[in-house]
């Protein structure tokens, strides 16, 4: 088990290294020049040169990446003398636009993303699985058809459309919830939740559909298994045959997908954050790309990638617990 985890952790590190390198390369393929953007007006060749040196852009790309990695482990400083900006370890880079370490920016943005993720995930898991169960048990009836229609709508509708509709109806028309912005959890659970309820609902609607379909198909498959007949032959009531024996057997793929989705969402819900003007990781990334703020882009990308890779590992470990036939080696 420990050896398995160690092996997986090494694999994770390699994936993250490659992700970082790829981000650097892509960034340098882009035709625009970040130094020119920060150079100010008028931009003489000398100033441009200075800015380049200050930002570290005059080094070859692999050297820049190497310094980045060094900073990640041991911290680093940018520029020289009084103008030097400190970035203690683990340094994810320094944003010259915002004049602060990327880590600080992530520190402010991450709680927003976590808040969005946790609430939305809980909602879509409960509603998705419940809908899927109803569909499976009442398959072929109007319940099933209604749920299918709702699910397909959820799958087919773009997030921003659902989001804008939500804002329009619930926010402006009926004035039930604030239309945008974010309140800290520490400001009280009421304002926090009321600001989040729309993004939660939107993300849950879009994702629950997938969970409903998965739950339905898994359950229908399980219903045909011999051990479900055995459960009935024991005299168990239907609610236990379905809620315990069937659901337990259908759970593994659902849990797997759930873990991966949470990992993905923790890296930032770009569209949702944009629609609701919430400044989470997705917003940060979008802004970084717009401003050609390489350190922000690399930092946020790696941070997000970390959650995806970690979720992957956790899901695999969880798998070993969920299915007694699987042994991790």
């Amino acid at each position, binding site marked *: 088990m420990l050896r398995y985890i160690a092996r997986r952790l090494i694999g994770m590190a390699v994936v993250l290294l490659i992700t970082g390198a790829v981000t650097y390369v892509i960034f340098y393929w882009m035709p625009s020049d970040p130094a020119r953007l920060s150079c100010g007006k008028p931009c003489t060749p000398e100033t441009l040169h200075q800015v380049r040196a200050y930002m570290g852009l005059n080094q070859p790309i692999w050297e820049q990446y190497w310094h980045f990695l060094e900073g990640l482990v041991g911290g680093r400083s940018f520029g020289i003398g009084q103008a030097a900006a400190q970035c203690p370890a683990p340094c994810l880079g320094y944003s010259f636009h915002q004049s602060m370490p990327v880590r600080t920016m992530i520190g402010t943005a991450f709680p927003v993303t976590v808040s969005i993720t946790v609430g939305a995930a809980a909602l879509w898991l409960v509603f998705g699985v419940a809908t899927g169960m109803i569909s499976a048990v009442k398959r072929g009836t109007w319940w099933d058809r209604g749920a299918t229609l709702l699910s397909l709508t959820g799958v087919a509708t773009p997030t921003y459309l659902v989001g804008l509709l939500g804002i329009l109806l619930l926010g402006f028309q009926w004035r039930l919830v604030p239309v945008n912005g974010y309140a800290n959890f520490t400001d009280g659970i009421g304002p926090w939740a009321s600001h989040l309820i729309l993004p939660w609902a939107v993300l849950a609607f879009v994702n629950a559909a997938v969970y409903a379909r998965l739950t339905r198909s898994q359950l229908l498959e399980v*219903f045909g298994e011999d051990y479900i007949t055995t459960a009935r032959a024991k005299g168990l009531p*239907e609610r236990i045959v379905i809620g315990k024996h069937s659901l337990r057997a259908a759970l593994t793929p659902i849990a797997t997908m759930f873990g991966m989705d949470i990992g993905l969402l923790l890296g930032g819900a770009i569209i949702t954050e944009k629609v609701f003007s919430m400044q989470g990781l997705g917003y940060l990334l979008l802004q970084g790309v717009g401003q050609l703020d390489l350190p922000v882009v690399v930092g946020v990308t790696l941070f997000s990638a970390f959650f995806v890779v970690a979720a992957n590992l956790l899901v695999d470990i969880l798998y070993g617990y969920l299915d007694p036939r699987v042994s991790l080696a």
Partner: protein
Amino acid sequence: MSLSPELSLRKDDPEPFLQVTDLAVDFATADGSVRAVDGLNFTLERGRTLGLVGESGSGKSVTSLAVMGLLRPDSTTAGNARTSGEIRLNGEELLSAPARRIRELRGRTMSMIFQDPLSALHPYYSVGAQIAEAYRVHHKGSRKAAKERAAELLGRVGIPRPRERADDFPHQFSGGMRQRVMIAMALVNDPELLIADEPTTALDVTVQAQILELIADVQQEFGSAAILITHDLGVVAGTVDDVVIMYAGRTMETAPVDRLFAAPQHPYTWGLLGSTPRLDGDRRKRLAPIPGSPPNLLEPAAGCPFAPRCVFTDRVEGDACATDRPAALPACHLAPDDRDALRPSSRKAAS
């Protein structure tokens, strides 16, 4: 074996323990209605064992599922079965009984051992938990008591170190041990009726005998009535009291086991006997499988369903075999004298 084994097969007995009358099961499929069981009759008394024998597809499993109420429309996933006729257990009609009553009987008064224990046991629960659960549905009492009971039963069916093994999962047992687990689960509530659907087909030969012996043993000990389903007449020989020979969902003939082997009446039974391996017999003699294949259940035959595969139809006047359904048992149009004359040399089956 009792002195007059025929008794258990007579229909006019006052209230037999289990009486199945004109049982018919249809499945609605995309291609049409499939008649899997077609007017089946049999009775079974306490403490006795009935063998239900027929080729694959003859409706043996469907019959057992019908008795257990597992084809009822009220179980969420039963789907497409329609059942008619009568199933009386202790005089109580089961097909029309409410779902709650059937649940009370299932696993307690009647229980079932399935063919493939690997797929019939839940892969994600320990065997102890599965057995304890079967006990707790029907008994009040603590979790601990149920766990005790599970371990006790595991020990009874010959699982070594039952207390520890109770925490293991089905995949951690061998095929034979898994079937023992299944038997323990079926016995945990002292059932009055035990149905075993081909309990040894998934096992290798050496284990088969042990499992059959175990079932016979526990049945004696618990005094239950049992239905043993098999396609192998060799299995039936040493284990059952009476035999029902099934084909295309119908009874072909029914007899106490000794008489069946001494004087089988139906050409289909002759065919089955001819294709049964004999442990004591002449090994050089080739086994003769019955030529042809089981009938299409989508279009039930008007006459004898076995007629297309039967080599004796020309011994019957006219085309009765193709047009008339035999009214009495044995379900064959051959005259009794003809049957005696045509029967392949009387032989003892494997035992």
